């Protein structure tokens, strides 16, 4: 068994399960009556969902305090499988909805879990404003470079020149560089992993779930049925191999300058933790507003 394999088996034992036998250790954390999921074979979303649930457990967030807000798209279907308080909202509006939840009850660990189209096309404005406010949210973006649920249309993260059902001659647009966008807008934590980096992804979630402020984790995920097929990357496994061969780790940067994280077809993919800084949150600052309104010294 490889070192990672042994560590994975240890994870399973730590969660009370026996590797390879008995019920799945996550069963009580899933709406198992709803399984199997709607996700296609080779899709990366399930891996990210598993990592998030693991992160909740590792961070020891009480089960009743876990809230997931999803939008519209494949990724947002997490709400039907993860056994937490779960809100499946309108397309693009996860972040303001989650903002309301968090402000009404700050004791909740509120996670926005949505796709690249949801968060950065129709919902892009909400993303930058929540980052600007340093709102207490963990935003997880499953980036599969296209609109999977509607059958593989191009979107704000589709690489230039890439094929999709609406860019049949190659994408004429440039994609957003999500880590740079998040950092520039004011996010206090920014990381990117692929679904190949399962253990790093788990550790990241476990670490950031207990932090405050606006935290952003981009997860590059295979979409073999749409993006992978159209761009001749191949199956889910082959898309993972694509990541493996191109991934370059540039983690824990000392400065707040984000490395060149733009994504181009066939070019290296930079992964890592790019921003990790302290900053006053919206709620920190609003506490001072409250004190002033009530005539107290802040």
């Amino acid at each position, binding site marked *: 068994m490889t070192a990672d394999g042994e560590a994975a088996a240890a994870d399973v034992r730590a969660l009370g399960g026996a590797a390879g036998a008995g019920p799945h250790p996550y069963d009580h954390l899933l*709406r198992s009556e*709803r399984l199997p999921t709607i996700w296609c074979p080779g899709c990366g979303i399930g891996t990210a969902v598993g990592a998030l649930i693991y992160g909740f457990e590792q961070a020891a967030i009480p*089960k*009743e*305090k876990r*809230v997931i*807000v999803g939008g519209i798209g494949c990724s947002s279907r997490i*709400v*039907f499988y993860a*056994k*937490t*308080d*779960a*809100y*499946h*909202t*309108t397309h693009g*509006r996860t*972040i*303001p*909805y*989650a*903002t*309301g*939840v*968090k*402000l*009404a*009850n*700050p*004791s*909740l660990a509120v996670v926005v879990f949505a796709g690249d189209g949801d968060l950065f096309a129709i919902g892009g*404005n*909400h993303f930058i*404003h929540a980052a600007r406010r340093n709102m207490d949210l963990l935003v997880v973006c499953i980036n599969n470079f296209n609109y999977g649920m509607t059958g593989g249309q191009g979107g704000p993260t589709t690489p230039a020149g890439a094929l999709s059902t609406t860019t049949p001659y190659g994408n004429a647009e440039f994609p957003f560089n999500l880590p740079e966008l998040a950092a520039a807008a004011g996010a206090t934590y920014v990381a990117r992993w692929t679904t190949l980096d399962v253990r790093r992804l788990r550790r990241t979630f476990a670490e950031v779930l207990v932090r405050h402020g606006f935290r952003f984790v981009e997860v590059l995920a295979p979409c073999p049925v749409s993006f992978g097929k159209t761009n001749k990357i191949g199956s889910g496994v082959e898309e993972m191999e694509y990541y493996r061969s191109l991934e370059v780790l540039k983690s824990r940067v000392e400065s707040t300058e984000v490395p060149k994280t733009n994504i181009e077809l066939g070019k290296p993919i930079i992964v890592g933790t790019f921003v990790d800084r302290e900053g006053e949150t*919206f*709620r*920190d600052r*609003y*506490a001072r*507003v*409250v*004190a*002033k*309104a*009530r005539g107290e010294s802040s």
Partner: protein
Amino acid sequence: MTTAAQNLVLAPVWDRPKTGTHFLSGDHACAEGAVYAVCRFFAGYPITPATEIAELLSERLPEIGGQYIQMEDEIASMAAILGASVAGAKSMTATSGPGFSLMMENLGLGYMTEVPTVVVDVQRGGPSTGLPTSVGQQDMMQARFGPHGDFTSIAFSPQSPQEAFALTVHAFNVAERLRTPVLLMMDEVVGHMHERVVIPPPGEIPLVGRPRPTVPPKEYRTYRPGPDLVPPMALAGEGYDVLFTGLTHDETGQAVTTYEAQKALVPRLREKILKNREVYERVGLYKTDDATTLVVAYGITARSARRAVDLGREKGLRLGLFRPISVWPFPAEKLRSFRNVSRIVVAEINLGQIVLEVRRIAGPYAEVIHVGNPGGEVLSPETILEACLSPPGARP
């Protein structure tokens, strides 16, 4: 723990409402109504003529332990008030026509997922940017049919700052009681006019909370309705693993996109409103006992209509005023109860909206005519009286 880190649901009410007699605009009276109703969360975006509601609440909410947040647009505002409500805070937003249009999709999510909240539309002249600083009553059909799909909305229309205060409190009570968004359809004149407003002591107007689960989490189903068709509401963070979706769903909240699931859900969303009229229905009547002609008017237009009734009575006409305070669902049975009426004049600052509903209800037994304008001016009593005096068949 910092003060703002408090759970808004559990936080104490630090300040009492401003009990006493005040000179307030309709917008400010509405904001004070929200404070009286213990609204704990306001999300909004500046827009004339509703901005003063946000301004006053940005001052008042931190005083009473609530949360004000200015969002990046009205879409976000509507989403945020739903989010705050599912976590247990009474919530509200306020806007005008252009913003109201932007709120429609998330308002529909509110109807579909049965989230109590209050949306105020201080109407101005439209369509589009229209007349930002002038009056309109042109969003009344949008208040009924704005979001896509089938549902039934509840909307109130105040005729004065005092009533803006009272109906804001009522709107919160109705929203909570029936687990639904409730619309307060004000207009620019009521929003900006200043009048005497009496704010009663706390407790004088009872406050109503949402129905809450009475079963343990294992037995709880997010959308199992009570006998009144309203499902008890568990909040985020209470251990019920609630599941909300705008997709058609079953009692557990799980998405089930079948005809059967649609048939079980969507008619109930309508029925729970229509079968609980006593919770929200309010009508104002003036000199209707012996009336043979009724003026139907709401909001600021009802003030002109009342004067028109007096002017008509001076001329010996048997005029009366029927004022739907709850405009949606329209108080149809109440209107039909005036069977001696042969003519109904619907006065409203639009080119014909509520008149369509009145004609549907009373058309079979009365001549229903419309008097209005395209927005920008209040209808004068004389204009309304003239419509009452017009010969039969002379007006549309």
